[in-house]
C-alpha cells in the first residue's frame, strides 16, 4: 500500500508535493493542490477573481496560493464579473493561461456577454490564431442553504454555447485530475465545482488519474464519463453533487434486488455518448438526474443521445428526475427542489414498471 496522509492542505512556505499514492482529502484540498501544482508547472498560469488572493477565496480553494506564488500569479480583482472574464480574453491573447474564478454560479450571469460573445468565439473569429486557454472555475449547484443566486445550475446554458466546454467533478480525486487536465487545454473550459461537496473527503490518487482503469473506461481517462458503480438493471446518469446521491440510491435499490449502474458524466460538453451507449446498451433502462430545471435541461440532451444509440433495445423511455422549472428556492425549500432519494427511487420505479401501450 502506498503511504497515506490524511491532510493535503498546503503549507504556505512548503514547495514539497505530498507523498505519492492514495490520500484522503476533501474536494477543497484537492482543488487547492491542483491549482498549486498548475502554478508551479506552468509559468503562464494566472489565478484571479474576487477575494481569491489574500483571503484564498470565500471557499478557500485558492488558500495560500498568493503567499506561495506571489501577487502577480494570484491576484484580487475589483468586484466586476464582466471585467474578470473580459480581462481573461486579453490575458489569453498575451499568452497567459487564465484561471479566473467567479465567486458563485449566479454571478456568472453579469459576465455572460464576455463568456458567450468573446471567450467562446475568439478562436473561431481569429481563425484559430487566438486560442482561449481559459479555465473558468464556477462554484456551482445548490445544497448549502445559500442566499439567492448562490445555487444555480448553469450547465445547459454553457453547454449550449458553441466554443465552450463544460466539466463537473463529483469526487476529490476527479476534482484534482480534471482541473489539472482542464487547465492544460487550449480551449475554454467551464469548470463547475459542486460546492456542497467541497468539504467531503475521499481518496485522491495524485499519481494515477484513472485508478483501477478497466475496459469500461477505455478511451475515458479524463476525457469522458466514469462508471461510478456497475450494475445490470438500470443506469442512473448524473454529475456533480448528484453522483453521490445516486450512489446512495443504488445501495437502497440493491436491498430490493435492483442492480443499479451509476454513470458519472463528468463532461457536460462534450458528452461521452459512447459511455452512455455502453452503459444503457447493457442495462437497457436509464434515468437522468440533475439539479437544474427540467425544461431544456441537459437531461433532454442525454435522453436523446441514448435514444439514438439504444432505441431498439430500450425497455422504457428515458426518465428524468430534476429540479423544477422554478427560480432556485431559498434554503427551506431547496430539499424539495433538488432531486432527493425518494424522487429518484420513483424515477427508477417508473422505468422498471413501464409497459408498452
Amino acid at each position, binding site marked *: 500500500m502506498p503511504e497515506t496522509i490524511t491532510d493535503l492542505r498546503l503549507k504556505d512556505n512548503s514547495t514539497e508535493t505530498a507523498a505519492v499514492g492514495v490520500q484522503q482529502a476533501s474536494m477543497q484540498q484537492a482543488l487547492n493542490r491542483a491549482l498549486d501544482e498548475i502554478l508551479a508547472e506552468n509559468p503562464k498560469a494566472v489565478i484571479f477573481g474576487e477575494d481569491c488572493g489574500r483571503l484564498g477565496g470565500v471557499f478557500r480553494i485558492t488558500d495560500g496560493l498568493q503567499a506561495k506564488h506571489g501577487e502577480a500569479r494570484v491576484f484580487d480583482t475589483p468586484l466586476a464579473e464582466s471585467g474578470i472574464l473580459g480581462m481573461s480574453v486579453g490575458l489569453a491573447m*498575451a499568452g497567459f493561461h487564465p484561471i479566473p474564478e467567479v465567486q458563485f454560479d449566479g454571478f456568472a450571469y453579469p459576465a455572460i456577454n464576455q463568456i458567450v460573445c468573446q471567450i467562446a468565439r475568439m478562436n473561431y473569429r*481569429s*481563425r484559430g490564431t487566438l486560442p482561449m486557454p481559459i479555465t473558468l472555475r464556477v462554484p456551482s449547484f445548490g445544497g448549502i442553504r445559500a442566499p439567492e443566486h448562490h445555487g444555480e445550475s448553469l450547465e445547459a446554458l454553457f453547454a449550449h454555447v458553441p466554443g465552450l466546454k463544460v466539466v463537473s467533478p463529483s469526487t476529490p480525486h476527479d476534482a484534482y485530475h480534471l482541473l489539472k487536465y482542464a487547465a492544460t487545454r487550449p480551449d475554454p473550459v467551464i469548470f463547475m465545482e459542486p460546492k456542497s461537496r467541497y468539504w467531503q473527503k475521499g481518496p485522491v490518487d495524485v499519481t494515477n488519474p484513472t485508478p483501477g482503469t478497466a475496459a469500461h473506461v477505455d478511451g475515458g481517462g479524463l476525457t469522458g464519463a466514469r462508471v461510478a458503480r456497475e450494475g445490470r438493471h438500470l443506469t442512473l446518469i448524473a454529475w456533480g453533487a448528484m453522483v453521490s446521491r445516486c450512489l446512495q440510491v443504488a445501495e437502497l435499490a440493491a436491498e430490493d434486488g435492483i442492480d443499479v449502474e451509476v454513470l458519472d458524466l463528468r463532461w457536460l460538453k462534450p458528452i461521452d455518448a459512447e459511455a452512455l451507449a455502453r452503459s444503457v446498451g447493457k442495462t437497457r433502462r436509464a434515468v437522468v438526474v440533475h439539479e437544474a430545471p427540467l425544461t431544456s435541461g441537459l437531461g433532454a440532451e442525454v435522453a436523446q443521445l441514448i435514444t439514438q444509440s439504444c432505441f431498439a433495445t430500450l425497455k422504457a423511455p428515458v426518465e428524468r428526475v430534476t429540479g423544477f422549472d422554478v427560480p432556485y428556492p431559498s434554503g427551506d425549500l431547496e430539499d424539495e427542489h433538488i432531486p432527493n432519494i425518494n424522487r429518484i427511487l420513483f424515477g427508477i420505479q417508473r422505468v422498471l414498471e413501464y409497459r408498452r401501450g
Partner: protein
Amino acid sequence: MTPKSVLAAVDDDAAPLTHHQLRELYTLMAAVRHLDTSAVAWQRQGIIPGYAPGLGQEAAQVGSGYAVDRTRDFVFPTYREMGVARAMGLDMVGYMATHKATWHGGMYNPLESRFAPIQAVVAGSVLHAVGWAHGQTLAGNAEGDLGVAMTYFGDGASSQGDVHEAMNFAAVMKAPVVFFIQNNGWAISVPTERQVAGGSVAARAAGYGIPSLQVDGNDVVAVFEATRSAFAHCRAGNGPVVIEAMTYRRGPHSTADDPGRYRTLEEERLDAGEDPLERFKQRLLTDGVADEAFFADAQRLAAEEEEAVRAGIADLGPRPGAEMFSLVFQEPTPALQSQATAWREESEHA
C-alpha cells in the same frame, strides 16, 4: 481645441513631426478617404453586403494608429477602424473580408498585425485591452519598455458597463492602456448629449483617477501628438490614459442607415466643421511641406490601392464549409466532428 497637458512629462524627447512624416500622414488619410468612400460605393454596387463608413474620422484614426509601435503594442478595434488598420499597415483585403461577409473577424492575422479581430459588441473588446495590458505588466517588461494596448470605442459604447469596469480595472492595476474614444457626435441616431451624461467621456476618467485629454479629432497632428504622449505615459508604467477625440461622423452610421430620419443635411454640414483632409492639405500647402504635385500623386496612389483592394475582395471566394467546423475549437468535440462528417456527406449528395 488644444489638448490639456495632463500627462507626466515622459515624452520630452518627442520631436516635432518631420516633413516626411507629415506627408506620410496625408498619404495615409488620402488612402483611407478613398478606400472608405469606395467601400460605400461597392456596397451600392453589390460587391459587399455592408460597411461602416468612417467619413470625417480619418484624422482621428490615422493620427492615433500612426502612433502605434507594431513591434510591441496591440490595438483592440471595433467595427469602424478601417483608418487605424490602414495606418498600421494591415492587409486591407483581409480587413475588408469582414465586410464582404467572408469571415466575421476579418482574414488578417491578429498576432502579426497587432490588430485584434473585428467584433461587433460595442465595448466588448475594451476589457480585452485591459487584460492584454496587464499581461505586459505581469510579463515583467521593464518600465519604459511596456507594450501598450489601445482600445477604440465610441461615445455610444461608453454607456456600456464594460467601459466602466475596464477603466476601473486599468486604474487599479495601473495597466498600460490607452482608451481612445472617437466621439463622432452620434451613436446611430442618438446624439452625444442624449448619450453621455456629464458632458464628455473624458470627464469620466477623473472618477477613476485616470489622466484624460480631449483632442481636436479633426486635426491629425494633434491626435498623433496626444496619442504619442499617452503611449509614452503608459509605457513608462504610469497606468492608463483616456483620450477623447472630438470628431464628426459625416453620412450614415452604416450602409443600412438613413440619417435623414434624425438630422438634416444642413445640420450635418454645420455640425461637421472643417473636413479633416482638406484642412490638413491647406496646412501642408501653407507650411510649404507639400505641393499640388504631391497631392495629385497621393490621390493617384489612393486610387491604385483601391483598385487592388477591390480586385482582392472580388477574388475572395466563399470559405470552405469545413472551416465552420474546424475553427471552433483547438480540440474539436466528437459531436462537432460527426456534424462535420454528416454535413460533408449530405452536401455532397445535394
